[in-house]
């Protein structure tokens, strides 16, 4: 055990003292936070130049309505309510009569004006938009621009046109304003948790409204963290062992320690690295959430499971990678073996959406009991807003422990045989031979 500890210390120091470790430690949160930061920066630096449009209204109904809405927008909505600073673009709209003789010519001319950036877009309103139901009716709202799919401005026109149409239809039916509102009222479904009993007081607790952040954000972050730990501490075992083999360090060490001690010292070093990163991220996450008053998002009851599963996950993948590393002779071998070794970490990434959408569904439940995927999938399910039966993580954990013992055993056998063999290509047949026949 002393020897494993000595090796662990060396591995741990060698890993955390490198520049790449510090860089990755900082880079990942920067990358994850970078998206949000970019959105905020984009929001702050919004384009406030005037935007010009042409509207061809085949219905003849919308000019007044649009002019009113434009007036409100250009004089009020685009300015910050407190500072009065302009925060959005003003819309300048030119209304054009439809060219009934040559509609295609008109559309082409307008397209050219858009292309030359004189116009931002042009819009065609269909003749039958007020009463679109029935056959042969032409009810459309077409927005022509260079990037019409990604252009959010079109929704402004959509809202103004549809709200105006609703009012017109209500007026035609002689409805009072309140009646019209009743008619158009849309009720949205609210996602709620379940009623429960307070364990201390025995009082019934009200069901709480499901927090969308908790539903998606928390399991997502935990999965990404586990993926990162494996990438930073278990995957590098392969190249590290290969290097020790090719640099003949392995033989020097094997004159002193057993192959099992060698492998375990390395893998334990990886676990130490993971736990260091986990502690840094989880603690800073907890402090940040407390600071911004969102401590309800901290999955306190899941965190111990998260740490246990992280340790086993790194142990499982790390021992496999160390064993594969022992079979490699050069970088080419290492590259071809990294992918299969990394699969237990990658596959759960593709399952984020279905698992979070239905944490108790057959796919999520089944995957949670397949040992290589248990750590990630089980933690994701536990961190979701759905309560899963307590026996599931317990059984999952037992499965992972048994599977991990198995991978460490196989890994140690492959490692022991392969570490001194030079020039033998790592194929499935050789791996099987190393593992079961020595």
């Amino acid at each position, binding site marked *: 055990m002393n020897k494993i500890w000595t090796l662990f210390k060396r591995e741990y120091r060698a890993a955390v003292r490198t520049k790449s470790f510090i860089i990755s430690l900082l880079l990942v949160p920067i990358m994850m936070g970078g998206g949000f930061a970019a959105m905020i920066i984009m929001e702050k630096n919004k384009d406030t130049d005037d935007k010009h449009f042409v509207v061809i209204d085949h219905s003849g109904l919308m000019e007044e309505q649009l002019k009113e809405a434009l007036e409100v927008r250009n004089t009020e909505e685009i300015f910050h309510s407190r500072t009065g600073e302009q925060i959005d673009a003003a819309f300048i709209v030119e209304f054009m009569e439809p060219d009934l003789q040559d509609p295609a010519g008109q559309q082409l001319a307008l397209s050219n004006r858009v292309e030359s950036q004189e116009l931002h877009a042009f819009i065609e309103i269909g003749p039958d938009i007020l009463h679109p139901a029935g056959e042969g009716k032409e009810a459309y709202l077409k927005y022509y621009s260079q990037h019409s799919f990604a252009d959010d401005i079109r929704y402004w026109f959509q809202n103004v046109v549809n709200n105006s149409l609703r009012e017109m239809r209500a007026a035609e039916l002689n409805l009072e304003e309140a009646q019209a509102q009743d008619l158009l009222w849309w009720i949205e479904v609210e996602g709620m948790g379940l009623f429960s009993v307070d364990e201390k007081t025995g009082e019934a607790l009200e069901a709480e409204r499901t927090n969308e952040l908790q539903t998606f954000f928390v399991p997502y972050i935990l999965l990404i963290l586990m993926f990162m730990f494996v990438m930073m501490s278990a995957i590098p075992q392969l190249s590290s062992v290969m290097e020790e083999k090719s640099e003949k360090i392995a033989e*020097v060490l094997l*004159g002193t320690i057993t192959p099992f001690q060698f492998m375990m010292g390395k893998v334990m070093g990886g676990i130490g690295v993971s736990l260091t990163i986990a502690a840094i991220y989880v603690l800073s996450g907890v402090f940040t959430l407390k600071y911004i008053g969102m401590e309800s998002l901290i999955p306190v009851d899941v965190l111990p499971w998260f740490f246990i599963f992280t340790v086993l996950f790194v142990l499982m993948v790390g021992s496999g990678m160390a064993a594969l590393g022992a079979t490699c002779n050069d970088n080419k071998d290492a590259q071809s073996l990294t992918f299969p070794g990394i699969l237990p970490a990658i596959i759960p990434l593709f399952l984020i959406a279905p698992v979070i959408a239905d944490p108790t569904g057959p796919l999520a439940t089944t995957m949670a009991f397949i040992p290589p995927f248990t750590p990630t999938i089980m933690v994701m399910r536990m961190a979701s807003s759905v309560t899963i039966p307590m026996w599931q993580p317990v059984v999952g954990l037992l499965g992972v422990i048994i599977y991990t013992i198995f991978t460490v055993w196989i890994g140690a056998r492959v490692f022991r045989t392969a570490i*001194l063999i030079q020039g033998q290509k790592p194929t499935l047949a050789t791996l099987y031979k190393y593992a079961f026949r020595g």
Partner: protein
Amino acid sequence: MDNIIELSGVTKRFGSVVAVNQLSLAVPRGSIYGFIGPNGSGKTTTIRMIMKIMYPDSGSLIVNGQGDTYERLHNVGYLPEERGLYKKMKIGELLQFHGELNNGTELGKWIDYWLERLELKAYKEKKVETLSKGMRQKLQFIATILHQPELIILDEPFSGLDPVNADLLKDIILELQKKGATIIFSTHDMAMAERMCDYIFMIYRGKKVLDGTLENIQDQYGNDTLRIQSDLGVEALRGMKGIENVNNFGKLQEMRLEEGVDAQKILAELLKRARISKFEITKPSLNDIFIRIASPERKEAGNE
């Protein structure tokens, strides 16, 4: 005699190649035992089996009174043929690491002592990658002996060292023996083996072909070697019958007497041809014995 290593009928195969064949060997405690043999003859495989890095296919192997257990490696220091050190580690840290792995005591004191002794003190805080090849070799030697092992196994310890450093290493090895350590080393330097070893073991094609003291080994070959100095040099030997394998050193010629030939007859013949200033009948050198066994045209030589 108390043996620190006992091998009995040890065989190791790699596929169809028999790397070590029915090898039996006993290394007395406190001795210096030299392993010699051509490249690929089985020296390193034998050493690796002693170190439990490889497992014999058959036969028994006892080190320090213990059989197939890792306990037997306690108190053993091993310098492999191909040196391997973590390049990014500092010298002091690396020695501390190896010392701890070997359960060494008072490591700080010994690290400073040996760095001083092998003239590496100034590099203690430097990284291994900054050292030259010879320096790395000395560093690896320190890592091998730092924990004061009873048994020290050195696979070609002198290769790559300049004569000054080779001499320094030789002195230290002799010093360690005086303090009670048993030393096994493999080498291609026959002169070094002759001067240092109490016992010499030669392995050829996986089989033991020599084992014993230098004297015993030389006795097996008898006084069949002549060393001659004359005013004509090698010309004096031209067409001479009864001698073979003439080795011309310029001022001195060394040769072997053919079996059954009387040295006096050769001397008489030589006196007719030239002025002889030296005529010595002697035992063959270890180098000569090695060549007799291992040179391609004499594959049948030795005990095979």
